[in-house]
């Protein structure tokens, strides 16, 4: 808690941390900035305030203020009946949360990381995702499962897996992957309001990153539609489709590609299930070349689904084979140099885009 207060003071006083942004602050009509962490916290706060059926459950979400401080201040504001610290028993507390959702409450369950969700995956899939179908609409499950997903830094094989493809396989679930603060706010609010089970995959390394944010996004009624991707950068030579942290990498790759005369279009998927197939296909029909980017294991992944979908819908428009950039096909190693090789880097995305454009790669 003190650490964050200190950090905020530092950000305000020092102009050196992010020069470009601090220059904006000198203008009276400065764009506001918000970290992903604050975006998530404010979304939870507003939704809890608006609907008394919303409650939080998870390990350390209350008195500890959240393992990653996402739920900071919410226990003080809403009390222990609505912000519940659980024992380390994912199967038990996830089942309890799903049962509460059957009754009509709106739980937001935090998994400290989605690696631990595997302990509870039967409840996510069999108790939550399928219930509306099996009961022919009698039992809907308005629950959100959220938490950090994918690789962090140096946390090793058991704490680094990305579960987007796993959960996105299952009909009945909605799977969201915010990138920036606008995504975090808009998609979390949409997820909490949605009457279906939503798996909300955050990224630990993005929590501390700051993004510009408009007044519209700050409004408490702000919501993003589920199932719609966003074109983060318009382009015409190659489409790069990514989610979560890889959107940031793809945007950096696009800047590098621009210097070589390749104008890349970057799609922020935002929603893995439902997947915005029409935005992806429209983009590929324009650029004729596609690179998919994900941090996850490559086999049977999101990139594979996107490739299949584009081959099915827009085959005639492809001028080159679809390129797939993904995490290495190995459990995450610990040593820093090996870890670096196990996740995509910006140069990997640049190289793949050049290959897709049939440019020689130096």
């Amino acid at each position, binding site marked *: 808690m003190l650490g964050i207060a200190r950090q905020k003071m530092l950000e305000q006083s020092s102009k050196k941390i992010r020069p470009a942004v601090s220059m904006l602050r000198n203008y009276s009509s400065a764009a506001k900035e918000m970290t992903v962490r604050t975006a998530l916290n404010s979304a939870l706060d507003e939704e809890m305030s608006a609907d008394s059926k919303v409650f939080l459950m998870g390990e350390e979400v209350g008195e500890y203020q959240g393992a990653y401080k996402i739920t900071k201040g919410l226990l003080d504001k809403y009390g222990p009946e609505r912000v519940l610290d659980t024992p380390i028993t994912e199967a038990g507390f996830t*089942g309890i949360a799903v*049962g509460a959702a059957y009754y009509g409450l709106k739980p937001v369950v935090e998994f400290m990381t989605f690696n631990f969700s595997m302990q509870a995956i039967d409840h996510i899939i*069999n108790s939550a995702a399928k219930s509306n179908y*099996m009961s022919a609409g009698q039992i809907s499950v308005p629950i959100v499962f959220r938490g950090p997903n994918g690789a962090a830094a140096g946390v090793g094989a058991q704490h680094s897996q990305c579960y987007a493809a796993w959960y996105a396989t299952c009909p009945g679930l909605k799977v969201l992957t915010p990138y920036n603060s606008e995504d975090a706010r808009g998609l979390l609010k949409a997820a909490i309001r949605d009457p*279906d089970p939503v798996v909300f995959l955050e990224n630990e390394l993005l929590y501390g990153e700051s993004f510009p944010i408009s007044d519209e996004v700050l409004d408490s009624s702000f919501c993003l539609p589920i199932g719609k991707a966003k074109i983060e950068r318009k382009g015409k030579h190659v489409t790069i489709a990514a989610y979560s942290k890889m959107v940031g990498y793809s945007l950096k790759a696009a800047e590098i590609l621009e210097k070589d005369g390749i104008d890349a279009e970057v799609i922020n998927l935002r929603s893995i299930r439902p997947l915005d197939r029409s935005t992806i296909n429209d983009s590929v029909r324009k650029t004729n070349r596609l690179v998919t980017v994900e941090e996850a294991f490559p086999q049977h992944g999101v990139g594979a689904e996107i490739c299949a979908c584009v081959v099915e819908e827009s085959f005639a428009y492809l001028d080159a084979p679809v390129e797939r950039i993904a995490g290495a096909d190995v459990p995450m190693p610990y040593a820093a140099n090996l870890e670096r090789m196990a996740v995509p880097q910006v140069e990997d995305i640049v190289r793949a885009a050049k290959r897709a454009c049939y440019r020689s790669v130096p």
Partner: protein
Amino acid sequence: MALSYLRSSSSRSVNLLKPLSSSLPLRRPISTDTTPITVETSVPFTSHQCDAPSRSVETNPKELLTFFRDMALMRRMEIAADSLYKAKLIRGFCHLYDGQEAVAVGMEAAITKKDCIITAYRDHCTFIGRGGTLLEVFAELMGRQAGCSKGKGGSMHFYKKDSNFYGGHGIVGAQVPLGCGLAFAQKYSKDETVTFALYGDGAANQGQLFEALNISALWDLPAILVCENNHYGMGTAEWRAAKSPAYYKRGDYVPGLKVDGMDALAVKQACKFAKEHALKNGPIILEMDTYRYHGHSMSDPGSTYRTRDEISGVRQERDPIERIRKLILSHDLATEKELKDIEKEVRKEVDDTITQAKESPMPEPSKLFTNVYAKGLGVESFGADRKEVRATLP
């Protein structure tokens, strides 16, 4: 004795289907007599970490006759389901409850439809207890539109939300944390109601049960865990699966009660006691000592891991319907013929409903794609050949 009661009203026709009280519709001879009768349970309750309730149970003729009819209906329904399964009209899984009827009816007598029940896959009779109809059962078993889940659930996925019956679950043990979640929601909403989460002796060893029990005890949830101990988890006898088959004690710090699950009145007393306890003190475990005549499911003959003598022994000594029949006869509440007529009537009702259920059509093909989501957002879904079959989810 019973005959003399009838002969005394000479103006009445000698129609033995006529109700004992003339104010009832003629169709069903269920007494409206609510004069209290006190009956002793077959055995006293055994308790763990609490004081057992009295084995003297208050009941009345109306309740006893209702028990008889309801259990006879459930029994007949399950036997009919057996025949339908063998005739291949029911497919997949079919787990029958005959022998265990007293748990379903005894529980309902102690609670209201605002209390919640959740159980596993042996759910046909529990659904009937919650107010589900025979038609909904048979139609669902045969995968027809008139089924309680419109044919999309099957035997293991019956639900009736309007009377707080939450299924119907296929994964052993999953229903216990879900049930504790229902109790959480009841407490959160300040409803002053309780949840009964039913599970078997096989599920009693599941880790998630203890996780949920720990949280329920920590948070004082009005959760009642009911172990329907029919002594066999599929083909594995309890002594082969559990180091301690005293399931009512497995809660450790959570109180428990062992109940004769073949005695509907004992079940009623225990559930009444449990509801009062749970509302004040948090979770409690009830172990219902019961028995299933059928095997685990229709693909299990049920005789490879237990002897036919054992099965027929229970049927002779402990059958729940026979117990109530003896009670009714010994208290002069109806004649043997009247009770047999009830059973005939129930059999006819079941047969007629099956005929009706067979006429219900299978779901429309478009229903493949409904209810995937509560809010489909106009998203596309696909059939096996996505270029042939696509649908927009409503």
